[in-house]
């Protein structure tokens, strides 16, 4: 078919070709299909790679955040341990001070300073006598 024939050809003659439009369309989509998967693969690869990079970045960030947190917690733990040790030391010093104040020698000296004297006699009640009266 020449170009003229084609121009002159009735519209209806093109109708039977309609189904072919499908074919044409199909043909077009087939051609597109050869290009689209490639593009899709590239996009997917790009997205995948980007995703991996982003995920990796996030993981690194997460790790850094964790490491920083652990490190900070370590410093805090160290500070608390030092505080605990200091409190224990202060406690030990207070216990020693208590022992010093409780020392019989100090109590005696303090009693003398206050003018207290030893009891000359101490009355003792025999347990047997008490038991006999009950």
């Amino acid at each position, binding site marked *: 078919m020449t170009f003229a024939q084609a121009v002159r050809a009735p519209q209806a003659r093109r109708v039977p070709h309609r189904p072919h439009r499908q074919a044409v369309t199909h043909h077009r989509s087939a051609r597109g299909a050869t290009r689209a998967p490639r593009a899709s693969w590239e996009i997917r690869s790009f997205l995948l790679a980007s995703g991996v990079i982003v995920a990796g970045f996030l993981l690194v960030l997460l790790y850094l955040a964790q490491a920083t947190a652990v490190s900070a917690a370590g410093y805090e733990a*160290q500070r608390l341990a030092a505080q605990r040790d200091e409190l224990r030391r202060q406690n030990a010093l207070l216990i020693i001070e208590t022992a010093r104040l409780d020392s019989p020698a100090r109590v005696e000296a303090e009693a003398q300073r206050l003018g207290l004297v030893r009891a000359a006699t101490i009355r003792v009640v025999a347990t047997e006598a008490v038991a006999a009266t009950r």
Partner: protein
Amino acid sequence: MTATISHMRLRVLFALFTVVSLLLSARLAYWQTVGRGDLLSRATDQVHSDLVVAAQRGVIRDRTGAILATTVQLRSLYAIPAQMKDAQGNDTRSAVAAAIAPILGERPEVLRAAFDSGAEWLFVRRRLPEETAARIAALGQSGLGFEMEPKRLYPSGAVGAQVLGFVNDDGLGQYGVEGRYDEVLAGTPGRLTVARDPANRELALGLRTAVPAKDGVDLWLTVDLAVQNAAERELAAVVEREKAAGGAIVVLDPHDGAVLAMASSPTYDPASVGNANAEALRNRAISWTYEPGSTLKAVTIAAALDKGVVTPTTSYQDVGYAVIGGRPLCNAQCKVYGPTTVTQVLTRSQNAGAVFVASKLGAADLNAYLHAFGFGVRTGVDLAAETGGIVRPLAEWYPVDLGTMSFGQGLSVTPLQLASAYAAIANGGTLYRPYVVASRRDADGEHRTAPVAVRRVISEETAATMVTMLTTTVDNGIANAAALKGYSVAGKTGTAQIPSDDGRYIDDAYISSFAGFVPAVDPRMVVVVVLEKPQSKLLGTVPAMNTFKAIATDALRYARVQPDRP
């Protein structure tokens, strides 16, 4: 021409590049292989710190749990003179010295001289009292800093110093319990290897290997702080009153040999050991020997009774002296008593009577009993620096020695040995090894010390007879000044001459002592009081007995022992 030069330049450049690359590669290879270890260790040294973790030294407590010795970390003041500058960079050494000198009780010039000594870093004072350290810290002076150091503290001060001993600046226990139990008290140090940041803070994510320190064991003593305090107080008082050269007191529980108190004069303060003289460091209760004198008559008579050669009523005619080995041995002041029983020998403390009893017993048996009672050998008490005294071997005895030893001359004993011997009489005849540590307490729990019965020395009957005779000695005899109201007391006095270096006895100087136990029946304590060269001389036993009474009164009240007499 230009192309040739450029080509040459390129070649030279390439060659240079190649050579440099090779050199760098070689250097890199060197550091990766041969120099790796050195590099690694240098890097590790910068980051890692390897520390010895000191073990906490064990606490020493008395039998009631009162702390006698413990260790705390105290602040030591150090100075870095180069850092003593104000905000404008002016030197502040003089100002720092002037500021801290009054707090430290030091002259500013002395501190300034220390700062100017050229030392980059120096200790100004070590182990400061807490309030002193706090006052200095509050000043906020630059160039000063604090470092923690362990310090052994004794809350009761000088009380019990001779029993406890002390810990020197190197952390080693010396004398007493500290010296004897240094290994168990000290514990085992640990190690800590950690990575640190430039601010010397430990890195949480870094290397951390730790071998934990094993703290020292806590010791609970048999010593009772109240009794110990009474013993030291009374000893110090009597030594001062009598202007004595020294003295010692031992208080034992006769039932198991537990040491309730042990005092020695002169003494020292463990907080300032550096100021104490060598004599003060010696525990006279265990490290000093003396001729016991008449307190030993109880041993001689116990031996003779146990051997069955005399009874309490066996009598002899006293003429004021006894001749033995061709030498006369007199009573005190050569007093003549006439007919005398063995009980009276003890109650009157007759030397001639003791010689009579010893003659009945014989040298071999007296020697055997002296050893059986524990004389001549160390008691085995768990304290450092004990001595054993001297009882010469039988082969070296002269005939007269039987007589002199019968009343406690010619042999030497420690106060603890005499106390142990009297404890054997008091408890029914068994000699116990004295001990000071009642129990050890560690992570595994409490490990109690089992009393050690060394041997039976005399029979129960003999012991009971001796208790009666010694009680009579206090009630009606020479030791009457030791009688206590409400309690039965058994005991014997002793006045002994002091041998000099030339083998003779020193004129007009004596060792006065009293050994006794209370109550006489079911006794709670044996007390031995020894005074060296009291000014009362021959009457020195009286202050010794008064000291016994004071200690016994306090201890019996404290222990709430019910009187056994109206």
